[in-house]
């Protein structure tokens, strides 16, 4: 089996997948959502964003959806992206992997507070 491009999953791709977990978003929406969910630590520039999107599309982890019904007339056509089931599965397994990583840290009391 050929090595997958997203193995290991880069954090940008993971964040993009997470950002699409709630609703379909367009590029700028993804950028803002990612910035929000990382407390502004990850700011995706257009190049990084779209090259990640391209890879995710190629791997069929996200898909493009047609223009939203609510697109206002006169506004530019925007492409929206939606998480596929494979993408959701991958995001979940990545989250679990990270959680597994955290478990020993929590056991050693390195982590403070009530993190997952």
């Amino acid at each position, binding site marked *: 089996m050929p090595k997958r491009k997203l193995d290991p999953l880069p954090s940008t791709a993971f964040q993009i997948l997470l950002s699409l977990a709630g609703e379909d978003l367009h590029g*700028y929406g993804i950028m803002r959502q990612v910035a929000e969910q990382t407390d502004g630590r990850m700011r995706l*520039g*257009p190049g*990084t964003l*779209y*090259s990640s999107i*391209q890879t995710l599309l190629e791997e069929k982890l996200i898909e493009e959806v047609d223009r939203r019904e609510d697109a206002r007339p006169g506004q530019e056509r925007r492409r929206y992206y939606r998480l596929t089931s494979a993408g959701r599965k991958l995001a979940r397994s990545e989250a679990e992997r990270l959680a597994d990583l955290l478990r020993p840290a929590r056991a050693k009391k390195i982590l403070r507070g009530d993190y997952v």
Partner: protein
Amino acid sequence: MSEKIYALLLRLFPSHFREAYGEEALLLFRDRARDERGFVGTVWLWLDLLTDLAFSVPAEYFRVQPALIGAPNLRRVNGMPLFFILEGQAPRFGALLLGCVFTLGAVGTISILLTQVGTYRTFRPWTFQPQHAGSAPSSAFNPSAAQRVGDAQRESRSPQGSANSAGSLNPEDSEPADSQSNGLLIEDGAESSRLQPQPSRAQNAVASTNRAMNRGATLDAAERHRVIVGAIVTLKEHYIFPDMARKMAGALLAHEKSGDDDAATDGRAFAALLTRQMREVNPDKHLELVYSQDPLPQRIGEPSAEGLARYREAMKEQNCTFEKVKVLPRNIGYLKLNSFPDPSVCRQIATAAMASLNHADAIIFDLRDNRGGEPEMVAVMAAYLFDHPEYWYNPRENTTQQSWTHSPVPGNKLADKPVYILTSARTFSGAEQFCYDLKMLKRATLIGETTGGGAHAGVFHRIDEHFGVGIPEVNPINPYSNTDWAETGVEPDIKVKAADALETAVKLAQSKLAKK
């Protein structure tokens, strides 16, 4: 304004990315520009964008296009081959133009490289061991190149070139060994030149005449004067006898003044004319003015380790040009030696060859295809023929303690055996020294044809791009005569055709041994 700048920056991305996401990226920029206002916001935005560009542009170029990844799997559909077309449009005009320029550049570079490599190969043998007047290295390395050079020389030789040398370049010489070594035959003064690197210039020059054969050269009075002055300066600086140099200078100027040179508009003819004028005053056959159609190089390279390695390799392949070593009926040793190779490489083989003939009752040296080589090897071989150190005349070196053979050679039994040397018109240079000295010492009987006549003690000095002068800088003692074999060759004791020489020698040796 800033959007335009960003649109321009977007052009840095590869076209497949721009096509897919260029518009989106621009939209995103517009959104951000709208939302992130104020000085700090704008700076932040641009910082972000530039960082992003710096990372993602190279990444995009390294990205493999999906169409290409899948290509091998999709090659056939129902047995029909399937082709991917990566670009749907015809290439842009600019791209075509750029392609043309690159192609021209590549073709040009390759052709230049080819020429250079050719030159390099041809000249290598001369540069790696400048003292070689002999032929072995050349013939070993690039026979065909040498052959071409040889041909070139035949054509380029000046009309009044020495008769003997011309003889040695006899066009009917068709044996490979011979034509190869012709590559090293230059007009006399130039070929001369053994111990100094300068001669290679002349050799190069003559070699290069090959390429520039068709280019004519006409000289006017001013150019002739320049060459004459150059020759005079060189003579006065380098000729061993200053008074002779002055005399020759006077003669050259006098001839120029009286208009004797006016008819010489051809470089080669002019060079020959000046040579004649110099020799009228000073009959030194090692002195010669040389013309080269191609520019003479400023200086030549040092012998390289690689060149030496190639020489070693070539010598190994050719058994150091010891072509035949055998004992003929009636215990007559026969050695066919086609050059006198560098003893530092070939001493062992030479020793082995002589050892295998050690018990012969007579020995025949077949030098009919020998074009010369290292004087040191000539002396090494000669040492076997004497039981005491013998003065060994070498026209290229001043007489020193080294001028005696290292005889006797331990264990050697050939010192008193009859020696026969087979010669031909192709026998040349170092081989002629072997013949001449042994003949003068009455140690050998020469059988065959008069030899080529290359004694060549001159060192080549460059006058300008096309003219140079070969000047002898040594004054060795010739105990036998005022002249040596320069240009005249060595006369054999028994004149027969080269082809019949071996038979004659064997008969002579047999009858001599029978008398014992």
